């Protein structure tokens, strides 16, 4: 696998492929529903403790002008947001009892939050 993340976060490379292709909240939410909980948990357990370091690194760049490696890292931590919903609250990838799969449509200016 070729390196896609900034060098300081090369240890997170095994998880990058899960998230860096997902450009929308809808696609990340769907990916979370499709992933085994253990995979989300492993990603969370490895990445969440690095969150403050990751964000300090990203905050040093202008928010609209992330270099490509940093943009991939940011998309990965947006994936971490979904993984964290599963790990921190539900102990399950999917909301217990929710229809699978389901989509919550995103509109308005939501796309800007990418």
């Amino acid at each position, binding site marked *: 696998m070729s390196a896609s993340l900034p060098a300081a976060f090369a240890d997170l490379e095994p998880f990058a492929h899960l998230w860096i292709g997902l450009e929308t909240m809808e696609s990340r939410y769907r990916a979370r529903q499709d992933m085994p909980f253990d995979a989300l948990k492993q990603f969370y357990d490895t990445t969440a403790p690095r969150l403050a370091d990751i964000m300090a690194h990203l905050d040093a760049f202008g928010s609209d002008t992330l270099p490509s490696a940093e943009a991939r890292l940011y998309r990965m931590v947006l994936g971490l947001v979904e993984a964290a919903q599963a790990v*921190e609250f539900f102990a399950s990838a999917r909301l217990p009892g929710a229809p699978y799969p389901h989509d919550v449509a995103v*509109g308005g200016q939501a796309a800007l939050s990418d």
Partner: protein
Amino acid sequence: MTNILSATPEGGFDLGHGMMMPDAAILRDGRVAADSFWSEARHAAERDAIYRRCWLYMVRAEDLPEPGDYVVRNVEICGVSVLIVRGKDDVLRAFHNVCRHRGMPVADGACGKAEAFRCPYHSWTFGLDGSLKAIPNQRRFPALDAGDLGLVPIAIDVFAGFVFINLDPQPGLSLKAFLGGIAPLLEATTLAPFTHRDSLSYDVAANWKAGLDPQYEGYHVGTVHALTIREISVTPANPFSEFRKMAFAGPHAAGWSQGNPSWRPRADRIVQSFAVQTMGALAGRVAGEGYPSAETPASLAIFPNFMIHPGAGGWFTQQHWPLTAQSHRWTAHYYYHAPVTASERLAIAQATAFGRDSGMEDFMVMARQQKGLASGATDSFYYGEAEMLPRHRAAVIRSVLNGAQANMRSAA
């Protein structure tokens, strides 16, 4: 003076049918007919007496800043597509999104910017003021007077940046009178500084009033949101997450929560902790810019289907639009101050995801509730005294439908 603010739910209300009193039996007992959540006849009656008569919230005025900016909003229960557009004179107008030639919608998509609206069927073209500007090959319509064939207008008015429409060709009362005593609380909802917005929508297999109910009370929080919101809302002093205060203004209502001021995210919830801390820093950066205060109601309920709440980073508004007797569409907007850093954007993403997931907790419950009610097992259900907001709403709707039926009888 109509729809006066009161600490009790017994006050009269006016939706444009004249002054009425909320149904006394429902207010007293909290007992509501189960078929009000599933019957087709009831659905049709609510369409005619409520959705075709009340002022309905559509959009924020700042979403249409420039001449030519437009949005299309569908009021599905009435089968109506509403086109709202800012004219070259800066005036907001609303029209039925229907070409006067053969009925085709003239505006596509949910929003956009236009110089004029050209019908995609035969290119009849309408100005931003709704007037018919061009009929291709007009000599083949020798008898038509283009001056009479503008887009059909819909009543529109704006209060504190909130744009409302009324599908009644001749609304029985003004928006200001309709809002009545709830207007100051709406005016205190300062969304304009919150220029970043996440918007979500989801179709729920439950009646629209079932959709509203969890937004009207805290009673369900300890159970339905045991994994999410419970710890933010439930305290030893307030184990059932009751409002500390309720107020009623005609058909509208508000509830103020007691909250849990000592709540902080659990330390092992690393992402939530980071997001909450970052959102606090964002608030510090733009201190005082329109945030909810201690006097902001946790639930501000503008009849029939518009809710405003304090949000994780500013404000949260939602609507529950009836589709069929047993389904509705949830539309929600989460308002935040514009993020500057990647951290702030991540905090917003976490806040919206948390809102989405706790919303899904409600939707899963109400879809199952819907099946229970529609099974016909019981002929009624109950709202307790801590559920006085939904009880009041049920009493208002009961009286409106009784009154509308009485009006029809007297007209017959």
